[in-house]
């Protein structure tokens, strides 16, 4: 049987537990904007050594194991650039002839993904670049294979990217031939243990073949036009009697991404970002 001292310990335990629980519930109920700011501030101060250590670890892994792969990618890209050089020149001349403005280049910042072992890691990735590198909120994040997501919070030296696995993800999409457009979002079904995307809002008359490549449409101002998203693998449900949903297997998986590109402004979009508000005189 416990004595008075034992009762004291048990009471302090319960108080500690209740306090931790209350703080955890408070953290869970805070608005996302506040929590992202708070997390970014902690990453910048108390946890900065950990973020720096993880970033260093990712760079060391690349130096140790990925050099051969990087060399192969560089060689094949050099070949591709040589082959496309004539095509690009021809495209520029044609644009000049019809009076279309030159296509915008997308400056990019390369980043390492600092993966965490938590199972929710794929929904929100931590990147080792931030506002000091020119990264801002809503900048798209891509890999060599395709779209991953966009930045939701950018601290000076690290940032968080919301990926297509996150239930909050949505992007305007168009087929590679530009014929059919719609919206992609995380699917209500999975393929084995892997998540899928759904292409919504496709009219019944615009049927898509299995294998059709889907890209970003550029509407909305977040994702520029032409980033590959995935490939249609199945026809989903028909909704409202006039449109159909298609299941899309994404090209890029957040869990497997270790190096990504953050596309920074200027971006090619039909809805350019609104200019900052000017105070009235």
């Amino acid at each position: 049987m416990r004595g008075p001292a034992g009762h004291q310990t048990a009471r302090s335990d319960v108080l500690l537990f209740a306090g931790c629980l209350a703080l955890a519930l408070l953290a869970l109920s805070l608005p996302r904007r506040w929590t992202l700011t708070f997390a970014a501030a902690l990453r910048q101060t108390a946890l900065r050594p950990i973020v720096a250590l993880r970033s260093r670890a990712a760079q060391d892994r690349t130096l140790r194991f990925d050099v051969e792969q990087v060399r192969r990618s560089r060689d094949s890209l050099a070949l591709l650039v040589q082959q496309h050089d004539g095509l690009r020149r021809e495209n520029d001349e044609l644009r000049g002839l019809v009076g279309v403005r030159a296509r915008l280049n997308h400056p990019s910042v390369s980043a390492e993904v600092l993966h965490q072992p938590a199972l929710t890691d794929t929904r929100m990735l931590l990147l080792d670049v931030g506002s000091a590198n020119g990264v801002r909120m809503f900048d798209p994040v891509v890999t060599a294979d395709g779209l991953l997501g966009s930045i939701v919070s950018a601290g000076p030296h690290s940032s968080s990217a919301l990926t297509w696995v996150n239930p909050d993800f949505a992007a305007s999409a168009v087929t590679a031939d530009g014929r059919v457009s719609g919206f992609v979002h995380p699917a209500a079904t999975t393929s084995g243990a892997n998540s899928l995307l759904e292409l919504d809002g496709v009219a019944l008359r615009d049927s898509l073949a299995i294998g059709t490549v889907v890209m970003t449409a550029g509407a909305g101002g977040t994702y520029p036009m032409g980033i590959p998203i995935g490939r249609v693998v199945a026809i989903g449900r028909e909704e409202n009697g006039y449109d159909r949903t298609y299941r899309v297997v994404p090209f890029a998986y957040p869990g497997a991404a270790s190096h990504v590109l953050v596309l920074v402004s200027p971006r090619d979009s039909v809805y350019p970002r609104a200019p900052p508000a000017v105070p009235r005189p």
Partner: protein
Amino acid sequence: MMPLRTTDRRRSRQGDRMRVAFVLGLLLAVEFYLQPSMIEPRRGAPDLLVLALLLLAIRRTPGVAALIGFVIGLVIDVLTPARFGAGILAHVLVGWGAAWGRALFFADNLMVNAALFFVGTWMRDMLMLVFSGTPLRDLPAEALVWAPLQSISTAVVGVIVVLVFRDWLAIRIET
């Protein structure tokens, strides 16, 4: 056997703490540098932070274990902000549960330790998934594929740690 004097006992307790702190420091170094610098990121990789929490929780009172869970959960939430607070809540509950569980089982047995690491990691994963608002459709795959995979890998690493540092991590029942 002669009972230990108070100063000897205090010194022995201090030595125990130092040894446990060394093992935990080692786990953190592996978690934050060695593992990411050697292995490609994979889902189901061992989570050494939850292992550190479980190792500490069975050596502390439930309140202190909850507090340690709070700190570890905060670190995880700041580094993986899928839903801030979900990690904190999950780790507080797992820390508290593991410390209370010590009263029900003898934690110096290797198999019991392995089971504790497996169940603790699985519970933590499931709590985190539920609190972070994982859609219902994703839960079966997470609960039956990824969470058990991570729990097994964490339990295997935990057993290796306990075997290597058996003398250092032995729980001494003080009278």
